């Protein structure tokens, strides 16, 4: 047990969770008090002692599933007796089902004998009644039947998942459930009811998906061993996910992570402003306070400096690959716009357009970003990035508005499609502005390769930062204010 736990904690550390030695000991201590056969309690005991941030829960869960997927009676797997057990469970279920409503005539036949249609029918029933045991059984059978898993085959779990789900046709089942709900209500549902029913159906279908995933994982672990599996499943924590290569799921997680982050950042920056270094002696206030000490100025008072808030001009490339990055940065900058006296946003691909008005008067930043993507006039010739032309336009139209209090942020990978760079614009800007920074979402090692000319622009900037994930973005914003 101790060995297993040690391996588990090792894996957590490798996944990026900060687990200290004391926490390790706490976990050992905690499981002494927990009945080991209770898998849920065991999981919570480990979580409470090892995971100290809600953002890390997901990573913990994955590792836990891999390491402890084969424990517990109902989780036995693989060999023939487990199959028999499954069969038995199925039989029980089916006969139970038969007694209940008398419709499923094939009771006792076992799962192997089921035709695909019958299996689909069972899935539908399981989902309709939210019968957990049955959903699990169907999921297992589906994996067995459709995934076509072969020992030692070097394919990722997602491949099997896709194969299984394609055969299960969950969307179809959801539709059927909706039909059934409509029938039950006697005709049409109001939009509200429709929505609620659909929510429920979707949740159950996600549940099936998770069961299928879990089953595939169990089989893979049995095939490849715990360590190898944990390695393939290791995913970066949300704050480390690369903007440019985030999958759709990671993107949603990123969005979720962004909101608390901006809130934290805003609080921290406001504090920093307030608690900044002390200023010169405030004579008036000192004398005023000396009265309570009988005229002795025992407690000197200082003036707190109120540093001028910077003005921010964000100039972002929103073409294809870097669009996500630009969106996140814009969102972040606007979320903390209270820290700046003025924020103006410009987006470009090969043309350039000001989008400040989209953000002003719009409470919902997502909505604003959506409008930026659909309404901004950013294409000039062909819709391929042209930094040179965009910068030229910026200088021509807005250059005179850049003043000594302005900080200019340029976002993009500086992949210019071999157009002319027009880097003199940046040189000019730097003369006028307080700072000019360039944020590049590409890894540093890719800079100045191919058509990337970030080096040429860099010579004229106050700083060029690699900004690939939320962590780096957060750090930069702190530098900024």
């Amino acid at each position, binding site marked *: 047990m101790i060995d297993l736990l040690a391996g588990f904690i090792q894996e957590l550390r490798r996944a990026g969770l900060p687990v200290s030695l004391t926490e390790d000991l706490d976990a050992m201590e905690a499981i002494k008090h927990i009945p080991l056969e209770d898998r849920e309690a065991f999981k919570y005991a480990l979580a*409470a002692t090892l*995971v100290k941030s809600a953002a890390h829960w997901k990573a913990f869960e994955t590792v836990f599933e891999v390491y402890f997927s084969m424990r517990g009676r109902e989780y036995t797997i693989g060999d023939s007796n487990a199959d028999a057990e499954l069969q038995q469970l199925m039989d029980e279920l089916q006969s139970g089902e038969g007694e209940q409503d008398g419709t499923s005539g094939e009771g006792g036949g076992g799962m192997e004998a089921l035709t695909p249609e019958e299996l689909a029918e069972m899935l539908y029933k399981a989902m309709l009644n939210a019968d957990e045991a049955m959903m699990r059984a169907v999921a297992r059978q589906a994996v067995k039947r459709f995934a076509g898993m072969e020992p030692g085959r070097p394919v990722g779990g997602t491949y099997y998942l896709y194969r299984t789900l394609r055969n299960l046709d969950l969307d179809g089942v959801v539709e059927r459930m909706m039909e059934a709900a409509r029938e039950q209500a006697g005709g049409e549902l109001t*939009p509200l009811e429709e929505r609620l029913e659909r929510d429920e159906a979707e949740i159950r279908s996600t549940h099936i998906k998770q069961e299928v995933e879990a089953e595939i994982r169990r089989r893979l672990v049995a095939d490849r061993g715990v360590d190898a599996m944990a390695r393939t499943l290791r995913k970066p924590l949300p704050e480390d996910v690369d903007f440019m290569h985030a999958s759709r799921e990671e993107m949603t997680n990123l969005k979720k992570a962004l909101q608390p982050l901006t809130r934290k950042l805003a609080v921290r920056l406001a504090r920093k402003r307030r608690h900044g270094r002390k200023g010169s002696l405030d004579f008036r206030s000192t004398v005023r306070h000396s009265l309570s000490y009988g005229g002795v100025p025992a407690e000197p008072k200082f003036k707190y400096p109120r540093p001028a808030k910077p003005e921010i001009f964000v100039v972002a490339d929103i073409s294809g690959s870097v669009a996500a990055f630009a969106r996140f940065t814009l969102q972040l900058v606007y979320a903390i716009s209270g820290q700046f006296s003025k924020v103006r946003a410009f987006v470009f691909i090969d043309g350039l357009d000001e989008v400040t008005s989209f953000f002003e008067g719009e409470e919902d930043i997502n909505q604003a970003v959506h409008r930026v993507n659909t309404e901004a006039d950013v294409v000039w010739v062909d819709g391929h990035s042209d930094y040179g032309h965009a910068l030229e336009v910026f200088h021509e139209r807005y250059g005179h508005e850049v003043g000594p209090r302005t900080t200019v942020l340029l976002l993009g990978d500086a992949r210019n499609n071999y157009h002319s760079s027009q880097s003199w614009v940046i040189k000019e800007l730097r003369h006028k502005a307080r700072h000019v920074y360039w944020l590049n979402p590409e890894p540093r090692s890719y800079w100045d390769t191919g058509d990337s000319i970030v080096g040429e622009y860099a010579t004229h900037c106050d700083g060029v930062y690699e900004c690939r994930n939320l962590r780096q973005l957060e750090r930069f914003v702190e530098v900024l204010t």
Partner: protein
Amino acid sequence: MAFRFDSVPAVRTALSDVNYLSDEGIAGVVYLADRLQKPILVEGPAGTGKTQLAKSVAEITGSRLIRLQCYEGLDESKALYEWNYKKQLLRIQTERNTGNSGEAQADGTWKELSDDIFSDEFLLTRPLLEAIRAPDPVVLLIDEVDRVEVETEALLLEILSDYQVSIPELGTISASQIPMVFLTSNNTRELSEALKRRCLFLHIDYPDLDREKEIVLTKVEGVSEHLADQIARIVRSIRTIELKKSPSVSETLDWARTLVLLGIETIDAQQATETLHILLKYKSDIAKATKELATAGAK
């Protein structure tokens, strides 16, 4: 050492007896905290019953609840202890007035005096010290610990790991009994590693459908099963929409109470949108939710 709870299910039943509906995770962590004698750091969105958990645990264990509300600028003298300067001054004054100011005794009196004015009588206990010194069982609630500065967090460390307070003039005061300690955080900043390491971590999220329904049923008088179910479903649906502030459990309860007062048995779309302002507190959120609820939610 006597433990407060026998098993995880026992915690759960006890909590539900005082109308706090926990789940496996919450009950498990409370049980562990008792066994391991460790504080619990409770984190989660606002209005999910973090503070209520501490209150309920105090109630079931029959303990007194001592609460320390954290805020920016909280310091030692408000959290731990303070010397009662005014009383000390008075004491010195009295000493002088009684008139034994002979040169010969000066040394002796000084020692006596300093021993005297730094004694229990002149000590003002603040919540943390009070929790340590209490002879009766107590539950210590340190609320919104993320509001204090990082440096102030250090004040808590000694108490949290060793259940003791060191006062230079008096020595170390250890707890006569180990209190249960809850720290709550709204996650406005990252707490220090040192603090997190000393605590068990519990994340309380919005409850799932069944639990929320149960909560509505137990907390709101005169609500029917059918209505509670509908309320829970609609709230869950609203939480899936991207909003500035998702409705919390307490807002769900307010909404349920309103609906009961209005005598509504089955919520239709119009009634839902008319009363949305109880669930949601931003104009843009209300507009968005209204729009979303009117559509069937097909993807």
